[in-house]
């Protein structure tokens, strides 16, 4: 049996490297699976796959545009899972989507289908502690690690519960806001990172507005690593090819590794 997302990330972290999880919206281009391979070759520790939804409440303009493009191209959960099953990468894949796609048939069925296709993690940003019960149980039953979000606005009691119930890693939001490239890292990110690291040994990854190697390095200093999404999708929407996206991920990889020395 393959190791879980969490076991994999903890092992990687154990080698002393900051974790790097780049993102791609499944179906945004016919070559999106090549993007996944390029990320893997560039030293990604896992890849986050966006399953596009028509009303992505927590996403900024870039991921909205990527989602719209993917949906217009006929992307469906079933189609994505069929392609995922053909991928040949040795790092974990993590699905990211919204509740409406999870509950379509049944929550348990959704989790089972993800696992059957080889996915090892899941992120559902509009399923907070209040609503996550059934989903968390279904994911656990399938051995799928459900990563929960932690926000700068979360109370310490909530952060404690989030770190206890999250699986795979804890997804720390650098800021109050949507996904999207930003100029600077807010002070609240460092505080959240410190607090989470004090509460859990689970990997803590920062996401939202991690736009370049310098920001990735700065944030990785406050936690175990970063998720990079909009910056990559912006390049892809502007015409970048999988190889170029891989090169950008490699540049972040190098910066992270140098910063960690």
């Amino acid at each position, binding site marked *: 049996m393959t190791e879980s997302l969490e076991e994999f990330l903890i092992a990687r972290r154990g080698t002393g490297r900051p974790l790097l999880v780049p993102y791609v919206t499944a179906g945004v281009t016919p070559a999106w699976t090549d993007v996944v391979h390029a990320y893997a070759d560039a030293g990604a520790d896992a890849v986050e796959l966006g399953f596009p939804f028509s009303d992505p409440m927590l996403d900024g303009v870039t991921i909205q545009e990527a989602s*719209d493009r993917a949906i217009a191209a006929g992307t469906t959960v079933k189609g994505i899972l069929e392609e995922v099953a053909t991928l040949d990468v040795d790092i974990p894949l993590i699905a990211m989507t919204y509740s409406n796609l999870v509950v379509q048939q049944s929550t348990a069925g959704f989790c089972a289908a993800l696992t059957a296709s080889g996915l090892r993690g899941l992120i559902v940003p509009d399923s907070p502690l209040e609503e996550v019960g059934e989903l968390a149980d279904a994911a656990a039953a399938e051995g799928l690690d459900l990563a929960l*979000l932690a926000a700068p606005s979360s109370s310490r009691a909530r952060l404690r519960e989030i770190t206890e119930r999250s699986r795979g890693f804890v997804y720390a939001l650098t800021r*109050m806001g949507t996904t999207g490239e930003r100029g600077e890292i807010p002070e609240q990110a460092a505080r959240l990172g410190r607090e989470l690291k004090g509460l859990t040994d689970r990997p803590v990854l920062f996401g939202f507005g991690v736009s370049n190697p310098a920001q990735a390095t700065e944030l990785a200093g406050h936690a175990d690593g970063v998720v990079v999404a909009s910056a990559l999708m912006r390049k892809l929407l502007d015409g970048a090819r999988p190889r170029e996206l891989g090169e950008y991920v490699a540049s972040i990889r190098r910066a992270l590794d140098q910063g960690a020395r």
Partner: protein
Amino acid sequence: MDGMSWSGRRGVAAPAARAMSDPGATGRFGTYGGRYVPESLIPACHEIEAAFRGAWSDPEFHSRFDTLLTVYAGRPTPLTPAWRLSRELGITLFLKREDLAHTGSHKINNVIGQALLAHRMGKERLLAETGAGQHGVATATAAALLGLKATVFMGERDIERQELNVLRMNVLGAEVVPVTTGSRTLKDACNEAMRHWVSSVDNSYYCVGSVMGPHPYPWMVREFQRVIGEEARAQCAAELPVGVPDYVVACVGGGSNAAGTFAGFVDTTARLVGVEAEGGAAATFGRAGVLHGFCSLVLQDENGQVTEAHSVAAGLDYPGIGPEHAHLRDGGRARYETVNDEEVVQALLCLARTEGILAALESSHAVAWVIRAAKSGEITPGSTVMLTLSGRGDKDIASIKELL
């Protein structure tokens, strides 16, 4: 009033157990409702729920709310007998005249309540989404009244359709932000308002315009709109020998005027009917799903992508329905009907020409169903019908001109 038959049937109340009450900490109406928002917004939802619970049990808050509804919004609104139309249809039709409330629709009730709450919480800015612009105008109005700032998100297509309301919001000092994503209508305005709320939650209060959104909004908005139903019930009791109408009818987009109306009659024998636009009929054609922070019936394709609603009435162009309506439907306490654009325009003209009342296209949906059901005999002759006329039609004149 000559020629009207005031004789109704038995109107003995048969209370439904705890119908339309407090949904508790989880905000569930049966399996619907809940709080499907990102972790970043959860503290704000808890804060608003606590503030609302505190305010709603505070006599001083009620006193301020009731006073503003009276001296500012013009409540109580009248219950007008539709004399000529009643005779034509062979029924007794009463109109609850929310079109006569300040700003021209029932939206003002909810907005005064939420603006008072935001003020009590020390927030500086109201955020709102709007479709037809009525909620936006009401929000801009309440913000001006209480010295708050207002930012209103409105789909680009609706801005074109509802130019007059955009001007009204500007005159009232609100900032109107065009939403250019997706279908560029109400659903996308909701997404954008939520996104903005996440980034400004410290000093901004999201003033949701209907019985939708994460808990406590569906419940809170229904409570602020309850005044429609409570007034109408007392007015019916005074006007009707049996006290209670046979039918209580209201149009439904998200469903706030219907929820407020139904809340006053849910424990009576009145049959509750919500009327949706055929192209936006979530209660009729929707499937259970999650949108804009709550679980309800949602119009969506077989892959779970939310579809665009289409209606001549911008205020009903919404692919979901308030979670409590979904619950009332499942339990059979209310039923939901659809009418098409053509019937709506004809109903608008009919009411204008028989009663001298120019109703909003949204409200004309309810009128259209009553006309159809009375003519087909579905509403038996001699029945009494209480219809909430949610707003006035001035804003729709340009659209109507094109449709004629």
